[in-house]
């Protein structure tokens, strides 16, 4: 859990130009790959691959000897899932938010859940850039709630140890 990819900047391709079906993006320089995202998943469809290990779109081999993931084309034909049109859904960090809210009890966790809801609703509405923005906010609030929870734990340990 130590290696992180650099956070996506607003100027990234996927933020300004929602990739559409039929526009396979050229993979960026594989040497700038820093590894898989810490949380969430590498968007496999139409978004710029973040790492050399990321499968390239449409199941073409990226030259890493990995077979294409079996789920491509396996979206069960449902119009409810626009993955085939807009790329993979941005991570909503919902599990993180639930854990923060119900196990650590933090109001920030509620905010995080609300942003997770925004991620999914905007994604399903076709607003990919908006979903990405909400995803970043959800992540930020999840991190904040975790940090506050960790501070409380540290405070309690210090109090317990000091008497």
């Amino acid at each position, binding site marked *: 859990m130590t290696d992180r990819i650099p956070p996506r900047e607003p100027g990234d391709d996927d933020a300004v130009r929602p990739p559409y079906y039929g526009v396979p993006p050229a993979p960026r320089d594989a040497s700038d790959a820093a590894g898989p995202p810490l949380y969430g998943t590498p968007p*496999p469809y139409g978004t710029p691959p973040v790492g050399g290990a990321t499968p390239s779109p449409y199941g073409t081999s990226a030259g890493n000897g*990995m077979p294409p993931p079996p789920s491509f084309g396996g979206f069960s034909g449902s119009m409810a899932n626009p993955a085939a049109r807009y790329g993979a*859904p941005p991570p909503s960090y919902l599990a993180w938010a639930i854990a923060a809210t119900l*196990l650590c009890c933090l109001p920030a966790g*509620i905010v995080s859940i609300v942003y997770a*809801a925004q991620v999914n609703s905007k994604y399903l509405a076709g607003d990919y850039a908006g979903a990405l923005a909400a995803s970043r906010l959800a992540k930020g609030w999840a991190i904040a709630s975790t940090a506050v929870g960790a501070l409380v734990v540290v405070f309690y340990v210090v109090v*317990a140890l000091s008497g």
Partner: protein
Amino acid sequence: MIGRAPAARGLRAVLPALGVAALAVAVVAVLAVRDPRIAGSYGVCPSVALFGLACPGCGSLRAIGALTRGEVFEAWAYNPAALPALLTLGVMWLFWWRRLVTGTGARFVAPGWVLYLLAGLIVGYAVLRNVPALTPLLGPLGVP
């Protein structure tokens, strides 16, 4: 579902999920050794200490501690929300693991209104827990 990650993705792809699992195991181990149901063993939730109110998470520690000893009904009494939340998180972890191993995105996206409803339910739960008539049902302040 749980298996070796493809060599192309490597162990690093699943490290986050392994880290979360290790953290969960560590917490369970600590709670199994040091029973949180003994008063003061882990202090009091800040919301109780500061405001005297039960938050949605109050009792979760004791509930997990009860679960480590197989006492499901007692866990329910401490925090009825903890059990469904833990089950949900476990299932989400399995899906997360599969996404990391296969390198694919989420194939199921919950509609936004479901998550808004979830947030509303949690807020409502926080309120109802502190209604004196409901406290014995929703715990944990009603639990002696």
